[in-house]
């Protein structure tokens, strides 16, 4: 009798764990839908604050596309003048950079993706990944709930399941009623190295998308605020030919 009880309890525990993992996947899948779009075009302004002091605003134009299971992204700096014309093209894990001073295109190793983009608290991977959703290279586990910015959220741990995952772990907070990402904590070597908080959600083409987000660095006194000016899903401004090194050469 005791053995049976233990067996049933074990099966129930495993089933609950399985069901909760499945639920976690469903939650992040729903939250990811905001970031998934066939062709996304956006312009944004990024301000880095170092020890509370604002640095020159960086303006950027971004294109992203999902096609045949591959994620494509292109970011082009519009300002400041010193960086104008600098562009990053990412196709899955491959990265090419156009240097505005010479117009030269250089393919970079994937190690560069983890590093700061333009001195901000975002990495190249933060800026380029995400077209398939934040959880694409991670295994989600539901670990509870917390209130973030007044919203009750699911707390879900995303553990890296792919060698190409830029972080070993992320903890995401997704609102229970609207499935919006409210906060992401990024972990490296077991430590929470930075956190991103989303705000100013607006509905575009039936999807909720954050028009403002802040990345706070926990390893140094630095913070980066991004304000999205234009956001278009299934935009005709995004064309296949933009995601080629040939197009990088023609960027001005």
């Amino acid at each position, binding site marked *: 009798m005791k053995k049976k009880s233990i067996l049933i309890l074990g099966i129930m525990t495993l089933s609950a764990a399985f069901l909760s993992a499945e639920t976690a996947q469903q939650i992040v899948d729903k939250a990811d839908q905001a970031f998934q779009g066939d062709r996304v075009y956006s312009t944004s302004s990024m301000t*880095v604050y*170092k020890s509370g002091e604002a*640095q*020159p605003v960086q303006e950027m134009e971004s294109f992203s596309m999902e096609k045949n299971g*591959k994620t494509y992204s292109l970011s082009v700096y519009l300002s*400041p*003048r*010193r960086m*104008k*014309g600098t562009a990053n093209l990412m*196709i*899955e*894990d*491959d990265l090419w950079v156009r*240097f505005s*001073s*010479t*117009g*030269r*295109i*250089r*393919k*970079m*190793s*994937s*190690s*560069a993706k*983890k*590093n*700061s983009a333009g*001195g901000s608290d975002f990495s190249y991977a933060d800026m380029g990944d995400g077209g398939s959703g934040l959880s694409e290279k991670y295994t989600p586990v539901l670990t509870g709930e917390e209130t973030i910015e007044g919203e009750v959220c699911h707390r879900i741990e995303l553990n890296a399941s792919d060698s190409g995952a830029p972080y070993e772990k992320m903890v995401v907070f997704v609102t229970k009623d609207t499935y919006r990402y409210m906060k992401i904590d990024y972990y490296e070597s077991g430590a929470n190295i930075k956190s991103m908080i989303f705000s100013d959600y607006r509905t575009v083409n039936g999807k909720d998308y954050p028009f403002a987000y802040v990345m706070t660095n926990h390893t*140094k006194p*630095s913070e980066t605020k991004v304000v999205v000016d234009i956001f278009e899903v299934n935009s005709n401004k995004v*064309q*296949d*030919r933009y*995601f*080629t*090194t*040939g197009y990088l*050469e*023609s*960027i*001005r």
Partner: protein
Amino acid sequence: MKKILILLMILGLTSVSLFSQVNFSGSADIAFTANIPEAADYSSIFDPVGQPNVMGLKDIGISSSFIAKLDAGDEKTTFSAWFALKEYPIGQALLAAAYDVAEDFPTFSPEYLAVGDLVAVTGDTIFSLDLMRLSTNVYLSDNFSMEVGRQSMLTGYGYGWNPIDFANPLKNPTDPDAAMRGVDGLSFKIYMGNIAALKIYGILPRDILTSGLDFEEIKTGGELTFNFPGFEWKLAGFYDYDNSAGSDAYTPSIGTGFMADLFGIGFYGEGALRKGSRNNFTDGGAGLSRKSEWLFSALAGLEYTFGFELYAVLEYFYNGEGYNKAERSLFEASLTALGGTSDLFSIYSPGYFAQHYIMINLMQPLYDINTDLNFSAMFSPDSGALTLMPSVMYSFSANFSGQLAYVGMFDLYSSDFSEVTGLPVKHVINTVFTYSY
């Protein structure tokens, strides 16, 4: 007639773009250079007449340059015009040219004295306006584009050297990020999805607008690039009608290059075969001739970005057009016999004189204090030339920066003649202030 057609084509293509979005940008530099001579008289083997400091090198040099970029574009077309206004110290060159090698120092000829007076009155520098780019790119379809005019054709994977870059002048490995003048040509690009891209181009003679050209004078090249996840591969070829017999910097060539990403490390290589050399070799006297056999050059390198933002590049370059020990000795003998003529000067360039080079480049951005640290070292194991180039750049604002750099050149093998041996100045401290607008 041909000239008119070409002009019309350029005007027609550019006018389409000029009515779209137009951007004006660029940078202005002012540089202060401190030369630290080996000896007070600056005497060197490159003094054209063997007299102390006849080249007129000063302790401190000041120079300025101005780059203006006019860019326009819309969905299908882009137009670029880059102008570079630079100041050149012409006075010393005029004086050197006017010097009569037969005269007895310190007695100067009337011609030399007249040039000296002229330089004193008019100044010893001139400004030169160089057209770096003037091109229009048109997407004829999503998979097919055409670019006409003076354009950049930079290619390859190497940081300091690009053996498979057949269309451009040689890149300076001690300043590989410097903006380079484009080449005049017409190029077509065909994109086969994201898997492959084909570029075919023709390079036009520089005097096309004044004298036209014959069809056989067009030099042609092609480049086929294959993209795979984590791996890129290029095949390149170049055809030169005169088979290097002329005085230009082109030879028939074939080459291949690749870059592979393994565990986050970028491994890359380039290999090229050239039918003949682009530079002359000396016979120890006044004789200069190009090699005509096939010459092999290759590059191997790796690059990695560490978690603390340090970007590191390590490269080895085998220069098939470089001089071996015996050829360097002949070169030295020719210098002694002829003096530093311009032909010999052009050969005596850092990173291309010997046959073997190793380079390391480290760049550490310090974003918190708006500073970039850079260190490059280039060593030639066969000639013993070592060049060290540490620099620090500070951004005063988003558009204004200052760079302090030291260039030190060392001749490690005293028994061998290297690209450092004959230089009158081997240590230079350079400060450059740049405003971007």
